[in-house]
């Protein structure tokens, strides 16, 4: 789809197209997961536990250089696993810009502390403590999303779900997670089709108010469609014997390399927590 030439459309349309591209990348992850890199060879339970321990270490560290080092560990693992670095970094930067900057920016001005500058015209003061807080937040988001992407890009989604069940995560949670993944592409495609159908019946640009009305109306229709189709998907799963448990062709078996990898991740995480006190 990325090669297609599509009109840019409005904000909502561009967002839907961006999400669709992200989902297509996630579908590509299934291909990456079949690769022969370091992470791909590990038991999914080890990947889940190991990467989760590193994420915990990121959250518990209070020193920027330690968090940056963990970010570096994530990048090194991606290289060792032959994962597409450009896709990984674009996903990380999207998450960092989209989610953390909205929270980090106000902190620069609102956190009390030593003044290091003032924004011209509006006169807002920038504090050293504010810059530090914002910096930590952005760094933490970058490091944790990198580690999260490592799991998603190197593990088939069904294996992630089965690994969650191995750690006694409740069936309801796993089912919801599984359904979300299965359904989100359909939902986004339905949204894109709606935008295309509307464009085919629209001549010339619409007024801002009309555009907002159509987006609101579209969101309502999409919600109704999504509720209907998600119900249908669940019925179809039940019709083929689904009772909430995840069954796979591959049984998880811990090999020596898995134990070594698990111990290494735990060791790095403990060292990071100690160093980042």
């Amino acid at each position, binding site marked *: 789809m990325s090669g297609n030439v599509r009109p840019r459309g409005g904000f909502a349309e561009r967002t839907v197209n961006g999400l669709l591209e992200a989902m297509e990348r996630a*579908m590509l992850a*299934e291909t990456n997961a079949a690769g022969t890199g370091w992470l791909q060879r590990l038991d999914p339970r080890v990947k889940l536990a190991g990467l989760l321990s590193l994420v915990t270490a990121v959250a518990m560290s209070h020193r920027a250089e330690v968090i940056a080092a963990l970010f570096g560990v994530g990048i090194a693992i991606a290289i060792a696993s032959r994962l597409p670095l450009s896709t990984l970094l674009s996903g990380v930067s999207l998450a960092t810009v989209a989610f953390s900057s909205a929270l980090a920016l106000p902190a620069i001005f609102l956190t009390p502390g030593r003044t290091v500058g003032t924004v011209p015209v509006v006169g807002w003061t920038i504090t050293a403590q504010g810059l530090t807080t914002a910096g930590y937040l952005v760094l933490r988001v970058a490091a944790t999303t990198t580690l999260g992407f490592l799991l998603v890009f190197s593990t*088939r*989604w*069904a294996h992630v779900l089965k690994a969650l069940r191995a750690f006694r995560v409740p069936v309801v949670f796993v089912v919801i997670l599984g*359904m979300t993944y*299965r*359904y989100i*592409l*359909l939902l986004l*495609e339905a949204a894109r089709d709606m935008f295309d159908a509307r464009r085919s019946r629209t001549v010339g640009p619409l007024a801002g108010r009309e555009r907002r009305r159509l987006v609101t109306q579209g969101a309502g229709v999409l919600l109704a469609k999504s509720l209907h*189709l998600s119900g*249908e*998907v669940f*019925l*179809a*799963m*039940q*019709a*083929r*014997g*689904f*009772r909430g448990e995840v*069954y*796979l*062709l*591959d*049984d998880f078996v811990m090999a020596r390399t898995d134990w070594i990898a698990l111990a290494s991740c735990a060791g790095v995480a403990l060292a990071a927590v100690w160093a980042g006190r």
Partner: protein
Amino acid sequence: MTLFEIESLTYRFNRITALDGLSMTIPAGTRIGLLGANGSGKSTLLRILDGLYFAESGVVRFLGDALTEARFGDNEFAYGFRRRVGMLFQNPDAQLFNATVFDEVAFGPLQLRWSAADVRARVMDTLERLRLAHLEHRVPQRLSGGEKKRVALASVLVMDPEVLLLDEPTDALDPRSQSQLIDLLMGWADGSKSVITATHHLGILGDIADRCFVLDRGRLVADRTPADILQDEDLLDRTNLIHVHRHRHDEGHVHSHPHLHGL
């Protein structure tokens, strides 16, 4: 032997009555055509027969067992039922939710806890039988409408159920795929499977059914052979299965009259 026994079945969606006091008996080993216009209750009936919806009033029995929510709470019964009864949904998008075509077809057998070797062998055999083996590693959501429908059918046939509930199986299929499916359905005329097919395509009825139920607004209005039904123009007109419209004859005359398409 009676496969399904339905007595005074009523089902409502909110306040809309989908099935209204329906009674019928379906013997094992027959091919049934469920005929009706859109909204006549065909899909709802299939879902009730598959134990996905439950009767609001009335009784539905499968080989003598009442199909109730409580009965499906029993794992042994539920797995046994799912092993014996397979359903093809009208909308293939609802039925395709796995990452690859192989995973999609393997989903049902895995839920029934077959051995890994059995699952692999049966999935590949089914894909080859339906000429889908070349799509094994493809993402189902990225297939064409006809391919999706065939993969959805494979996901049901892989379990080799004794009873097949097919909801508009020929929708979205190209003529070649349609005739392959009809060949498959004709192959079960020997009584090896019980097949209940919901359709509003009169053209395929004679090939896919030995007996035909006509539904109209949730009620059973006819229970006859396909040949009898197809000859009853008045019944077909009353149940909106044929319609009057203008069309051109070979002589160049254009006029309106009710008629059947695809026969």
